[in-house]
């Protein structure tokens, strides 16, 4: 379900959401080209950037934060989400498709088994626009919630 205002749990995600909302001031669409990585330092290791494919049907990893590559040992940059295991790819695609369609951020909390360790994470997906108002990139940030 899309929500106009997201209610988040993790303080870092709250801050990033506020940062993104700040980019929307004066009815502007947050554009990828306007972002400065220095402004994203507080979240840089927990960020993922995905490019929306030209046909809009897939999402390609362009940046994968150090926390994730260290935690999951994966190198996803340059690869589409359609390469992921079917169930995971379908879940992510549905989530990203909604952000692209609605032009609105999405957030969710999920619990999963990571090599025998059950963990709960919260993730936030933010759209970044091109000059003609299409979503061209997604900025994803996720943090593990402590029990």
């Amino acid at each position, binding site marked *: 379900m899309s929500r106009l205002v997201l209610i988040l749990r993790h303080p870092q995600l709250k801050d990033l959401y506020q940062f993104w909302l700040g980019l929307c001031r004066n009815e502007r669409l947050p554009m*990828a080209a306007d972002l400065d*990585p*220095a402004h*994203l330092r507080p979240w840089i290791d927990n960020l993922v950037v995905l490019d929306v494919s030209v046909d809009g049907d897939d999402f390609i990893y362009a940046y994968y934060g*150090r926390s994730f590559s260290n935690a999951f040992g994966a190198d*996803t940059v*340059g690869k589409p989400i359609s390469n992921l295991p079917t169930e995971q790819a379908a879940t992510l695609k549905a989530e990203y498709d909604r952000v692209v369609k609605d032009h609105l951020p999405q957030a969710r909390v999920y619990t999963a088994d990571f090599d025998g360790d059950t963990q709960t994470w919260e993730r936030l997906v933010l759209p970044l626009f091109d000059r003609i108002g299409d979503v061209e990139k997604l900025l994803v940030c996720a943090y593990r919630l402590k029990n």
Partner: protein
Amino acid sequence: MAVEKFPQRRPLEVKDPMTAGEFNLWCAIHDKPYRMARHQWPDGATEWDVEFNPGKPDGTIAYGTGQEDETLATLAAFAFMAGIEWAEDARRTADDDDEVPEIVPPSAAAVVPVIAPEPSLYARALALAMQAGTVTPRALQDALGISLDRALRLTERMEDEGIAGAAEADGIRAILVSTARLPGNA
């Protein structure tokens, strides 16, 4: 072959050290197909490289910074990118300019094979737009294999020259002229 290693020194005043992550995030945000990655030599030493098209079948190493220190390597990587951008700007300027056929003196023309000039990027974009009757930056990006930014500039130039109309809400511009009225066809 012995390789002399230069001493690796940090600049004295790096108050706000940059990281490979920042370089990689900058590239991701700006559609630059590069990434810094650390590689390990057989002797255990590590150095930072700049990869081109990381994760893709044609991925390769574009530049070896020769630096073990992440901050110095990131500075070198950004300097490398500055060079790439300079070269892209130079090529873009050349592409955007209308091509003027070179006048070949008759004596030289007799011995030099005549090679038809490659149509400029703008000419190719115009041809696509005329054929479709409309133009969008996305369509040009797709058809010409160029960045969205560059495709956008081409469509803006078409509007400036009265060839395409203003962009509609969905970015589509109507083509306002027929082929016969294009410059060079009058």
